[in-house]
């Protein structure tokens, strides 16, 4: 018997080759169609906003990790993802210094104060956006398209009852934040992530499905509600954040349902035209509870 070849270890015995940085950079690649769409519709402005946001996020991460005496991990791409996602939620007319404030808050208050990647209870990009929304409400709600000031489709719908053509919504020729205009570009990127297996489909399915069904029940045009506003961007990229979403299958359905429900409530009866950001942030707070109550039973466990 050749005993030297027997290695006794505890599980896991099969390891994936994926790493944090590989996944993060793949997410960045999957955001490229949305970035290109933003540049197509808003030209140079979009480039400047995205660059400032990414630089701000990476610089904040670098400064924080240096001050705290931790290993500097700006190369893992997680700050870049936050920067790009934040930029995609901002209106094209926003001053660049505001973008810098937002990305510093996103990484500083949204991520690093909780202990860095893996410890943040909220999606950092949405924390940055929520802060900007409360700090500079006027700057955050000035929209532009083709050089003209305009309102977003949801705003037009809520305040004046004007419906925007669904095809325009789908390709993205509408007023709105950089990344929420083109649902098409977001879906392409998401398909790539699905193909790579880096994203769970249950949260977006639950969230978008809930919005579709509820708007249908309340007599709205469900297709309009799917493609208007930031539902696609939020459901596909923000709600699925690996750190701040539930880990169990049923928990993910529940998370998606809750976020969708809040979106519909805010859109139909709330003061704001759009509720995706608040829907996701509120459900983020419920994630530990959801994880606890949807924990699958271990094999052979007796209750």
């Amino acid at each position, binding site marked *: 018997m050749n005993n030297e070849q027997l290695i006794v270890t505890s599980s896991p015995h099969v390891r994936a080759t994926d790493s944090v940085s590989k996944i993060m950079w793949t997410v960045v690649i999957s955001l490229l169609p949305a970035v290109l769409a933003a540049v197509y519709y808003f030209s140079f402005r979009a480039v400047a906003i995205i660059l400032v946001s990414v630089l701000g996020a990476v610089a904040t991460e670098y400064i924080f990790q240096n001050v705290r005496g931790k290993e500097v991990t700006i190369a893992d791409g997680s700050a870049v993802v936050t920067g790009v996602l934040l930029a995609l939620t901002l209106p094209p007319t926003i001053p660049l210094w505001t973008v810098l404030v937002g990305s510093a808050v996103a990484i500083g208050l949204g991520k690093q104060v909780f202990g860095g990647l893996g410890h943040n209870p909220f999606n950092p990009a949405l924390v940055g956006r929520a802060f900007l929304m409360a700090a*500079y409400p006027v700057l955050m709600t000035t929209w532009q398209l083709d050089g003209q000031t305009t309102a977003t489709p949801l705003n037009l719908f809520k305040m004046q009852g004007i419906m925007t053509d669904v095809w325009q919504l789908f390709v993205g020729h509408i007023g709105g934040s950089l990344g929420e205009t083109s649902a098409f570009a977001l879906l392409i990127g998401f398909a790539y992530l699905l193909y790579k297996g880096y994203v769970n489909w249950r949260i977006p399915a639950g969230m978008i499905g809930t919005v579709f069904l509820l708007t249908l029940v309340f007599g709205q045009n469900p297709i309009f509600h799917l493609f208007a506003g930031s539902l696609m961007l939020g459901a596909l990229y923000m709600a699925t954040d690996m750190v701040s979403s539930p880990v169990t299958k049923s928990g993910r359905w529940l998370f998606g349902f809750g976020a969708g429900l809040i979106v519909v409530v805010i859109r139909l009866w709330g003061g704001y035209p759009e509720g995706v950001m608040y829907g996701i942030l509120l459900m983020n707070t419920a994630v530990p509870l959801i994880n606890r109550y949807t924990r699958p039973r271990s094999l052979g466990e007796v209750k």
Partner: protein
Amino acid sequence: MAGQLINDFKNGLWQENPIFRLVIGMCPTLAVTNTTENGLAMGIATLFVLLSSEIVISTIKKLIPSNVRIPSYILIIATFVTFVDYFLKAFFPSIAASLSLFVPLIVVNCLILGRQEAFASKNPVHRSIADALGMGLGFTWALTLLGAIREFLGMGSIFGLQILGAWYKPMIIMVLPAGAFISLGILVGIMNIISREG
């Protein structure tokens, strides 16, 4: 003897600062520190009530039956809060208006009741005075600092004096309740770093 008094006094200023260390009295802390002036006024009002009630309670502590001590404390505190309430309304009507409901609410400020229970009811009058001054001033400087930060970022001014020019776009969130939570959280963090190193 004198050293003990100084320790009682210094305790509330830093080591057991009611806001940054004990994290009590959060209701006025978060609600009225949107400007420097409000923070300072709230701090002084609380200081006065704390000092007066600690003096009275430590003087008559032997007369209060322990079964009804909490209602007795509340009654004494409420008396002094009424003083403050009428005083502010008579002499500083604008401050009274902006603090509004939070002046009567000093009655149930857990800092004040907590110090009666934890200190004044067990210690002689002179030590209670030192404790009340320390805790009250600790509360006051924390509230004033919080108010100054929020007013500076939220309106670009301090004590109503415009410091930053028209180029500054005020961060509206800082004068909203959310700004209180954010600045308080960051200040507590900074305090922890300072005392760990000091």
